[in-house]
């Protein structure tokens, strides 16, 4: 698989504070990565370093397998960090034209990208007249001008109203389905859960997890069951060797397996014991629950 970004032992200290502590990870082509962590955990500093605006204290990173220096590589990257930054006195189209000059890409794409983020009718209005949502969308259009090989987003929905959040998410999902590699930093877990396949979890600058989202915690998921005779169901479950425990929670019985178990296997085993289930659902812990487990384990 083609490596887009390689980071080794990247560290940044501000005085006595270690904002980013020896991060090492790889970004491969085609995946959608999330950087997860509470405010102040070093997400933006990490992105700042790989984007050439924050000088690393130690460690290294290389873009596209080290074939190009950082500023050349960044022409193949699209990035939006924190707040959208544009020239307030320039129109949307003028701002994008400047970005085209910097990235050395043809200006032909300006209209197309403005249309993608639904700003075509405002292209001749100056940036300072835009609402925050429009500014954020213009930033996305700007980041897409070069049809980037990787799109980097830092808290793209921060400060937006629900409609703006939905619009930005739609755009991100549209881009993700086109096969563009994405690196998304956020403290909003459901945001990451919705689009990311891989996740980097940071806490106080330290990397506490890097890998696939569904392998974040060693977890076999759980089952939600319902039957006409609940007591019979629970005793049947308890008699199964691969069920660790079961408990009645509200209208359902929640059963945790101690191994990888499919719903079909469980259904078959219960039928063999003469139990007909009226409801059977396999569930996984939400990213939020997994994240909390992970950070708590780390603190313990």
């Amino acid at each position, binding site marked *: 698989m083609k490596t887009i970004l390689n980071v080794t032992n990247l560290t940044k200290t501000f005085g006595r504070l270690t904002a980013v502590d020896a991060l090492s990870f790889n970004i491969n082509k085609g995946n959608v990565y999330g950087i997860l962590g509470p405010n102040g955990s070093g997400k933006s500093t990490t992105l700042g370093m790989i984007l050439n605006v924050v000088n690393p204290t130690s460690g290294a990173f290389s873009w596209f397998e080290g074939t190009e220096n950082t500023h050349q590589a960044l022409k193949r990257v699209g990035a939006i*960090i924190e707040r959208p930054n*544009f*020239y*307030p*006195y320039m129109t949307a189209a003028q701002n994008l034209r400047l970005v085209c*000059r*910097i990235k050395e890409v043809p200006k032909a794409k300006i209209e197309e990208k403005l249309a993608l983020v639904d700003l075509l009718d405002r292209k001749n209005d100056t940036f300072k007249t835009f609402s925050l949502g429009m500014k954020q969308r213009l930033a996305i259009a700007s980041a897409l001008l070069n049809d980037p090989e990787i799109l980097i987003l830092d808290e793209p929905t921060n400060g937006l109203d629900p409609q703006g959040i939905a619009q930005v998410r739609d755009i991100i999902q549209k881009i993700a389905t086109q096969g563009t590699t994405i690196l998304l930093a956020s403290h909003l877990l459901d945001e990451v859960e919705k689009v990311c396949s891989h996740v980097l979890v940071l806490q106080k600058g330290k990397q506490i997890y890097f890998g696939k989202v569904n392998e974040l915690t060693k977890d076999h998921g759980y089952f939600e069951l319902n039957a006409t005779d609940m007591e019979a169901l629970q005793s049947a479950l308890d008699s199964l060797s691969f069920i660790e425990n079961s408990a009645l929670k509200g209208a359902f019985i929640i059963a945790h397996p101690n191994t990888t178990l499919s719903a079909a296997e469980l259904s078959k085993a219960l039928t063999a014991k003469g139990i007909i289930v009226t409801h059977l659902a396999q569930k996984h812990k939400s990213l939020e629950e997994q994240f909390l487990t992970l950070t708590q384990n780390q603190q313990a």
Partner: protein
Amino acid sequence: MKRLFLIEFDKLRTNRSSRILIGAYFILLTSIALIAAIKFDIGPIKFHLAEQGIFNFPYVWHFNAFIGAWFKIFLAVVIVSMTANEYSNKTLKQNLIDGLSKREFLHSKWVIIFAFAGISTLFIFVVSLILGLIYSNYTEVSVILKDFEYLLAYFVKHVAFFAFCLFLGTAIKRSAFALGFLGIWQMFEGFCYGILKWKSPSWLDADQVFRLFPLNAMSNLIPEPFTRLSAVRNLANQVEVDVFKNTNVQFWDIVIVLLWAYIFYFLTYRLLTRRDL
């Protein structure tokens, strides 16, 4: 190079206050020609400034280069604000993320510095040539081509001054404070000169030390032209005042100013590379 120029040109072109300041600057430069219109006609005293030899070749190069340099503060404001605004709008950060290197960013500003200084020099050349051709008593080519070093000095002086402004804009990040600092620095140099004159030991020549100060070095490049005027000289002779100081462009002043321009370039680059955004 062309790319860097176009990037910076776009930023200036679309900014209304930059357009106004640049426009005002060139109108003021042209207004030197209005000096020609200064005429007194009070009874027995008839005085027409243009007839006093100020537009004679080659003196006109010196005179106009000296007067023209007064207006450079207009372009200085443009340069300081175009740099400071990159910080306040955080567009420097965005430029870097978009794939401009810090060196390219600095060079795009320097291309504009050279463009400003170059166009201004060309402007002074054209205005002086026209005024000279109208009013000069001598229009032989050999005379016209004399004293071109004042134009060279004019160019160098502007490049160095703008380099200073670019450095201040980068270092202070706020246009108004950077311009204020420029004023304070000017006073500081005067203050230092006073101290030097007063307290320097006998083996140290205060004037030679003062010659090394950036703003003073820039102003030394084109000495005042007035004592060169024959009318002034005649008057000075009558009252027996010695005003025959050197009014030529000194080689070492050019070297000192070029050195300062390089120092400002270097310091600006260092600031850009060391600072986190």
